[in-house]
């Protein structure tokens, strides 16, 4: 007689191996990215209210706790971008006849685009 044993799925399944842990960190990174987007929106709304409001907002960020928080956000934003950039070749398969455009080119185009946009923003803000 058959009496199959079904192994339970532990609540800590995500801690089973490095790949799962990295996956969870990648998922978690979106929370930090979202928080930073909210902060950015607040900043934009302050800018809209004039220079004084903007200066006050910047000043309110000027403390070590915020600095620490921003370092964490930056780390998660980098993790988010790098992991997703590197996954694009799986999602976007471009074929030229029999040949597939190499993964490094598809993933690399993200980095190039990111660099170009960053440089452009830097140039606008600086100018």
């Amino acid at each position, binding site marked *: 007689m058959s*009496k*199959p*044993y079904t192994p339970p799925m532990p609540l800590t*399944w995500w801690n089973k191996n490095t790949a799962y842990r990295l*996956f969870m960190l990648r998922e978690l990174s979106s929370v930090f990215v979202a928080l930073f987007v909210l902060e950015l929106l607040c900043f934009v709304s302050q800018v809209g209210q004039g220079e004084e409001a903007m200066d006050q907002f910047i000043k309110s960020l000027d403390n070590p706790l915020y600095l620490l928080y921003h370092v964490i956000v930056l780390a998660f934003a980098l993790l988010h971008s790098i992991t997703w950039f590197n*996954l694009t070749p799986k*999602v976007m*398969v471009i074929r030229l006849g029999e040949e597939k455009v190499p993964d490094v080119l598809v993933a690399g185009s993200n980095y190039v685009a990111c660099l170009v946009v960053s440089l452009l923003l830097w140039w606008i803000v600086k100018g």
Partner: protein
Amino acid sequence: MPDEKITLEILRYHPETDEEPSFQTFEVPYHEDWVVLDAINWIKEHVDGTLTYRWSCRMGVCGSCGMMVNGTPRLTCAVFLNEFHPEPIKIEPLAYFPVERDLVTVMDSFMEKLQSVKPWLIRNEDEEKPLEEGEYLQSPAELASYKQFSMCINCMLCYAACPVTGLESEFVGPAAIALGMRYNRDSRDQGREQRQEVIASHDAIWNCTFVGECSVVCPKDVDPAGAIQQAKVESTIDWYTSLLPWTKK
């Protein structure tokens, strides 16, 4: 050294007597050119004939010898002992599947999921060519568009690597979706719409959170994770296209 040994810790489960599986340790002669399956076969031949597991080809083709080797789903006929020696090796049945006995899992759910994506060529009834008109020709580029997905040997390693299959028993899963995509991409096939009912459902592609481990463990480089994400993109395009006034049915 001729007398060297290696330790195998094997998860055993006897449904007649056991409530749950437990590990049993075996000392096996160590040969550099032995794969894990050789060591398991040696145990069955010399120590315990009741040890139960599946295998057939011993050359990475039949897909039946998949087990968890030190926690990772592998084809045991394709993992050499020297990868681990002198450390012990832990062997368990494929994760997230019910265990029938020892290292044998119950595959019924996988078989049903596989069938649900209709993994065969489908032609519209009125567009089937009569036999005497010969085969449906295909260019090398058309073949290349699905060949990778067609390399699947149904070993189920991808299911054992995917936590979603453990969390959501209804998840159609990596190999079945990849195989559905294999036929969707085939220029001779016209069954995409029929398959979409399953593939584009919540239990299939939208249950996938892109952990990506299925593609990492796949011994045939099928890239089921890629197949699923590509199906997501295509299904999303379908949905937006269906909103356009001139495509409304």
